[in-house]
């Protein structure tokens, strides 16, 4: 039987995790100026700490996904300084073990999709290091949030690479954790030492499981839809910002840049967006995606067609962040509702 442990309350769980913060970076969802993000619990104000339980157990992901903790917005490869005519090159320190509390199934699956890209040969070392060093404590939702489409993408109960599942027993107020990986087992052991107790049962989530969209069908419908005038209309509405891509938990494009000041500098990678005109611009000036229509199409086709062809899965987890934050109201539904097949019946 898989070990289940319980904390008397969420507060006790947080305290126990606090005790481990010399060993792990512990992050959890909270709000900063009203905006929802995962933040290190050691840097939270009391007010921010009081938000953690609600956001960790809520049936909706926070605005910021867990992605930045595995694939940071900016990440340094090397730092260089010039001294006495000699170049000194340093690589930054290795990543620290981290615990992500209150991740959602959609975010877990999004990491599994990024795994397909970054952990296949050639393996992305920076990502792998963090992935191996991360313990995910996942709360399965009991129902769907307002903008959630996880049921369409079949991820609402997925917990494949979660290390620990978390659930609240409403009658006793206990927080239950069920380990389901080696990393999860180790953390469970550590939490037992910090005052949590073994528990006979785990509470399973109530979210109903619905039949997901068939990835091949969507891909075919998308391919048949490529020449539709719909794309021109959509591109005329899109304002070409990167909100959809930067808040998407599965987007994983980056650019490599140098930053230099006199005698020192750094080479770093930083998120890039296929919505930017210079995303595919080449050294000679040629751009294979010269218009916004090309770029808008690329975003949707990458998620709903190319990713299926290359990786065998839809590249969207239905978290709803892009649609929620798009300044002109473009969402995955905007496209899914227009392509052929059974999706139209929605």
């Amino acid at each position, binding site marked *: 039987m898989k070990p289940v442990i319980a904390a008397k309350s969420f507060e006790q769980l947080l305290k126990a995790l606090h005790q481990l913060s010399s060993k792990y970076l512990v992050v959890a969802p909270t709000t*900063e*100026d*009203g*905006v929802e*993000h995962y933040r290190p619990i050691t840097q939270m104000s009391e007010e921010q700490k009081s938000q953690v339980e609600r956001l960790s157990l809520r049936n909706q992901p926070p*605005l910021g996904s867990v992605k930045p903790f595995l694939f*940071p*917005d*900016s*990440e340094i490869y090397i730092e260089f300084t010039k001294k006495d005519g000699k170049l000194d090159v340093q690589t930054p320190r290795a990543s620290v073990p981290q615990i992500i509390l209150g991740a959602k199934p959609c975010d877990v699956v999004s990491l599994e999709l990024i795994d397909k890209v970054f952990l296949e040969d050639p393996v992305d070392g920076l990502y792998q290091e963090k992935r191996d060093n991360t313990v995910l404590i996942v709360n399965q939702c009991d129902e769907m949030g*307002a*903008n959630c489409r996880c049921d369409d993408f079949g991820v609402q109960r997925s917990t494949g690479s979660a290390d620990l599942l978390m659930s609240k027993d409403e009658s006793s107020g206990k927080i239950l954790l069920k380990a389901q990986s080696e990393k999860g087992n180790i953390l469970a052991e550590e939490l037992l030492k910090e005052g949590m107790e073994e528990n006979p049962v785990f509470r399973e989530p109530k979210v109903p499981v619905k039949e997901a969209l068939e990835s091949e069908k969507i891909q075919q419908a998308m391919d048949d839809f490529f020449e539709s005038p719909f794309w*021109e*209309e959509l*591109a*005329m*509405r899109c*304002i*070409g*910002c*990167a*909100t959809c891509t*930067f*808040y998407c938990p599965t987007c994983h494009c980056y*650019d490599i*840049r140098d*930053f*230099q000041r006199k005698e020192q500098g750094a080479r*770093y990678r*930083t*998120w890039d*967006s296929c919505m*930017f*005109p*210079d995303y595919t611009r080449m050294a000679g000036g040629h751009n294979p995606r010269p*218009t*916004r*229509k090309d770029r808008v199409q690329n975003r949707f086709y990458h998620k709903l067609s190319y990713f299926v062809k290359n990786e065998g899965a839809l590249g969207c987890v239905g978290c709803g962040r892009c*649609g*929620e*934050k798009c*300044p*002109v*109201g*473009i*969402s995955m*539904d*905007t496209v899914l509702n227009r392509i052929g097949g059974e999706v139209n019946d929605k």
Partner: protein
Amino acid sequence: MCKITEELQQIAAELLKEGKVDLVLGYTKGEQEEQSVPCIVTQPEDASKLIFDEYSEKALSKYLLEESFQDKKVAIVLKGCDQRAFKLMQDESRLGREDVYLIGVECPGMKWGEDLSPFCLHCDYRTPAKEDVDSLLTGADIPEAMQGEPLDHEDSFTDINRLEKMSKEERFEFWKRQLNRCKRCYTCRNACPVCTCRVCVFDRENPDYIDRAKDQMAQHQFYHVIRAFHVSDRCVSCGECARVCPEGIPLHLLNQKLLRELDKFYGEYQAGIDEVPTPLSHANADEPDFFGKEGKA
């Protein structure tokens, strides 16, 4: 259906039927609750999609400069602030008045969460002037807070007042925290109806004055401060920058602060209402020389 929406659909259908325009750019109901989104209608029978309500926030004028709108005869729905942005574009020779059919609408004030947008509460130009547009649609259901005199700058800039009272250190911490959340998605820039440079300085290839990093160590403060200065005397106070920011950064405070300072230095000027030149686009011989020796103090 409200009166403006009804008349708007009628005008749009007529313009398209008579071939006076190729497309009508307005708003339609979005997929989410309490959301209206930009909508392009090209067929008379689709004119019934158009609506105008208190969620029709997006400034539409900016679209007119987009490539896909060139060589098309466009009719566009404009609120007061949006018409100010249009007038700036016109004054700056970015587009011709005769190329566009303007449908001015009386704005009831846009929603800001549950409340009314603070921009709208101090707006005294909700409705474009009749002579500036081709059709003017009035009869909006004006909420009580929007009736009567708008708040003046001193009253409506309450957040600025709060910031001005902070110590330098507190203020620095405030902006550091806010701007550290910036991901440089450029939504604020792309949504701003007066941020209209043909090539934005931040889109230049490998500029050596700013990095592209998106983490806390990045130079977001430069991006936002440069942008605020670039639009300072041209801001039409539509509030789009703050509305669209996914990180909830109160970017409008930068613009409001600059507007307030400009008012002090140059007298009141309202971009897109008063005639050009804008305060910062010309200089008088007798102006104090801030960059010379005397001004340095």
